[in-house]
């Protein structure tokens, strides 16, 4: 297997606390990976660090993408190399149309492609293209538009932070559709989820706890986490309440 992205012994301290504590993971080219684990485990932090967001750039260890260290690269340089991130809570932009937003990062900026990606996420282009990506969109609509923008970008490595949170069943189907599209394109996906339904679409899963990988392997094996068979971590075991919280899906 080809490793597209390798996290090597990453230690990140924020506010005096070790949030990532020697995180080492290999992500395989063209595969769908899931990161799961309790609230506060460091999953979003991992995604933010891979994307290079401000506040997540000062870490020990290394981040190797296609054989090259990208630890010093800016966000946009990483994005131009094919990495992108779908936020758990996407930003809103006053006055910026859905069309402009999607086309900003699109590989093909034509109108036809823009309409197509909106249809892919189940939104009627005639109703949405000229709307602003602002507070008048519902949370679910905003997430679908985020996904449409990412589909249009045709990235090589997609980070999806809880793509399933706050969306309905129909939108969940759109996410599965997007995963199929990324797979066809040979793109690599790293998704963070608390849902068993989404986890089942992954090919590999990593259970993260207190900033470390505590278990990894097939989805079958790791999904036992959802049956409360979580391996204890060094610092803490997820509480029952946390586990109740994350036991979603069929």
């Amino acid at each position, binding site marked *: 297997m080809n490793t597209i992205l390798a996290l090597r012994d990453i230690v990140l301290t924020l506010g005096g606390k070790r949030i990532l504590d020697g995180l080492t993971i290999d992500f395989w080219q063209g595969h769908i990976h899931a990161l799961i684990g309790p609230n506060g485990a460091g999953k979003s932090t991992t995604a933010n660090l891979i*994307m290079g*967001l*401000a506040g997540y750039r000062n870490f020990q260890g290394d981040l190797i993408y296609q054989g090259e260290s990208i630890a010093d690269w*800016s*966000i*946009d340089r*990483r*994005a*131009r190399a094919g*990495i*992108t*991130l779908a*936020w758990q809570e*996407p*930003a*809103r*932009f*006053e*006055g*910026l*149309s859905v069309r*402009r937003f999607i086309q*900003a*990062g699109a590989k093909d900026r034509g109108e036809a492609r823009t309409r197509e990606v909106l249809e892919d996420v189940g939104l009627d282009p005639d109703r949405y293209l000229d709307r*602003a990506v602002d507070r008048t969109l519902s949370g679910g609509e905003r997430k679908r538009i985020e996904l449409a*923008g990412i589909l249009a*970008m045709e990235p090589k490595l997609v980070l999806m932070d809880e793509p399933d949170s706050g969306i309905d069943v129909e939108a969940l189907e759109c996410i599965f559709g997007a995963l199929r599209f990324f797979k066809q394109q040979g793109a690599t996906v790293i998704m963070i989820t608390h849902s068993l339904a989404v986890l089942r679409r992954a090919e590999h899963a990593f259970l993260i706890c207190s900033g470390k990988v505590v278990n990894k392997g097939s989805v079958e094996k790791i999904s036992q986490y959802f049956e409360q068979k979580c391996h204890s971590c060094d610092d803490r075991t997820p509480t029952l309440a946390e586990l109740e919280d994350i036991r979603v899906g069929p």
Partner: protein
Amino acid sequence: MSDRSLLEQLYQSIGVNPHDLWGRLDVARIEIHANRVLGVHLVPGLEVEAESRAEGIAAKIAVRPGAQLAHPVQVCFGMIPDDGVQQIELRIEIGADARAGVVAHCTFPNARNIRHEMDATLEIGPGAEYAYFERHVHGAEGGVLVVPKSKVVVRPGGRYQTDFELIKGRVGRIEIDVEATVEAHGTADVSARVSGRGDDAITIRETAHLVGEHARSALCTSIAVRDRASAEVFNTLTATAPFARGHVDCKEIVQGEAVARAVPIVDVRHPKAHVTHEAAIGSVDAKQLETLMSRGLNEDDAVDLIIEGLLGGKRQRLD
């Protein structure tokens, strides 16, 4: 240079194909270069008188009472040379119950040392409606001083709307001054959207006096300043009549070493009048910036797009 070629250059700088416009006999237009009117096309109900002055134009535009212009009058004015002065003295009269709109493009594509002054007086007749939109296109050098002044009287039940946009090219130095007096049941909505960079300097004064019962006004300013640019916004609303309602809104985005100041003044002299104000000054939102950068835009382009959205956004209006 022939008049035709001057006109074509003016239109080209604003991204309009003049031949499309010239073919439309139902659309009125006025074309002015420096101190000469190069073209006028009128429609029923619209009257224009203009005379050349040494350094500009004096013009009177009138819309006859009751006339309803189906399309906004297209006005294009500016200068192709890189230096010079253009002073426009303008009188606009919108007759009672008339309805008219103007879309004006003001363009100085090669400006290095240009002064453009506009001195306008407007009277919006009783029950009349007038909407004015002015878009400026300046060159990349910033060598322009723009001083537009308007004094407006809105007669009872009249509606006045004005929107000034300077987002493309460098501002240079701009000093906008709009003062509206609004009589009973009249409305004045004044808005300006300006983006400055380099050492651009922006001063905006929007004033409305709500002197009649139920008079209304919204003064909205949206500014973005970058590099070492500066912006000062002095918006003033006075209300002296019962049930007058007004809102002052100022939004400024500051990046780099730019500075922005907002001084909203509300002066209410009637217990039954109601005026509110809101001013927000801040930098571009980090999450918005990072989102666009994670799509591959560099920081400058991302800031441009965010500002384009903010400044291009629909104007706020009172219902």
